[in-house]
């Protein structure tokens, strides 16, 4: 071990010691470790992320709506029941039902035009499970970023919180603001994939916010709530506020900001 106190004091902001990219779920998931530079070798990195990779690949195999024979598609076509599906399916169904209740029905995978579609929950859920599967021995922290849904454990360096930027929907090369992350943050909006947000009350594309972010201890639920908040718009902050541990932030189509009382803005 070679301690690097001089470097730490000269550049205290972060000590990212690895940046791993995993192409899965039709996108890229990045896994970053933080800590002392020589905490592990490149070979050991692959051992550390092996279980997380398996978790992500498994989630993709079970829940991909692009794979014809995935269990979720078999379920959608009525070829199997939830009881016959892999055990993760029952878990996701239950959690989606909870998210639907918590969001006043603004998140509703059962109301999607093509049939049951839990995509708004699964990406965050899978990233959360991947983080939980990482080996954290000897590192100060880790971040999993599943195409913009971010979950962290630990810290970038001693005494510091992870800071995560939220993209400005009107200029994606700028950050609108940053949050101090304890747990996860999911952001939803139409600026990235056009009209993919469906209003469950009408079955039509709708987004009453340019960007909606939700923070909280579980990234799966945060992901579902961010989807709901993007569809509902600023009025949706009313269903976020009473959910213990979760906070919401909305950027309106007019550029205005609205957020719940304890949204964890980072002062930079």
């Amino acid at each position, binding site marked *: 071990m070679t301690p690097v106190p001089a470097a730490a004091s000269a*550049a205290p*902001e*972060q000590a*990212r010691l690895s940046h791993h*990219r995993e*192409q899965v779920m*039709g*996108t*890229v998931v990045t896994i*970053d470790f*933080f800590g002392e530079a020589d905490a592990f070798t490149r070979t050991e990195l692959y051992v550390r992320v092996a279980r997380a990779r398996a978790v992500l690949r498994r989630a993709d195999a079970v829940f991909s709506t692009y794979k014809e024979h995935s269990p979720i598609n078999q379920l959608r076509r009525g070829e199997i029941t939830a009881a016959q599906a892999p055990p993760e399916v029952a878990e996701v169904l239950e959690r989606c039902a909870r998210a639907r209740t918590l969001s006043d029905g603004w998140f509703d995978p059962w109301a999607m035009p093509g049939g049951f579609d839990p995509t708004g929950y699964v990406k965050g859920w899978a990233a959360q499970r991947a983080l939980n599967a990482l080996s954290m021995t000897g590192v100060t922290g880790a*971040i999993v*970023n599943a*195409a*913009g*849904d*971010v979950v*962290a454990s630990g810290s*970038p360096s001693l005494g510091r919180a*992870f*800071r*995560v*930027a*939220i*993209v*400005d*929907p*009107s*200029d*994606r*090369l*700028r*950050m*609108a*603001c*940053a*949050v101090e*992350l304890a747990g996860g*943050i*999911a*952001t*939803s*909006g*139409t*600026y*990235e*994939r*056009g009209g993919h947000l469906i209003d469950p009350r009408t079955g039509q594309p709708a987004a009453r916010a340019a*960007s909606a*972010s939700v923070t909280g201890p579980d990234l799966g639920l945060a992901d579902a709530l961010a989807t709901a908040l993007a569809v509902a718009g600023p009025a949706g902050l009313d269903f976020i506020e009473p959910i213990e541990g979760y906070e919401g932030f909305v950027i309106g189509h*007019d*550029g*205005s*900001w609205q957020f719940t009382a304890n949204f964890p803005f980072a002062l*930079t």
Partner: protein
Amino acid sequence: MRRARVVVIATIAGLAGVLSFHTKPVSLNLGPAVGPATAGGPPTSAPNPTTTSAGSSGTPGTTSPPTTPTATRTATGDAINYNYGVVSIAATVSGTKLTNVTVASIDDGGNFRSQSIDQQAVPVLEQEALQAQSANIQSVSGASYTSAGFEQSLQSALTQLGFK
């Protein structure tokens, strides 16, 4: 078969974006922006010297030195094989600030699935680019989608421009 789009088109579009960025008045109520977005060049100064270099080549034959902090430079990343074809990403820097990320060229053989991915890919690249500009943040949250090939090409463009 679709032909690959041409690098020059993307670069010109990128520069147009950069130039209008400095002259266009800000009309949206964006709240207090933080981070590198506020560190752009002075908006009222004389027009910036603009140089463009494509590919991994060095400085173009202009009189102004390329190290001028306000110079605008574009680099095109390596052509990378990805699931559906070959892609190359271009990044544009104005001074020390990254101002544009575009798909410089792509040859996907007309694959429909690929085309939907192409349209969705740039936001994630922009997130990577945004993160590369700030030592004070560890990650970026935003709705997005990309492929590893796109990121790899962007990384090579950023490296040429002196990021990371």
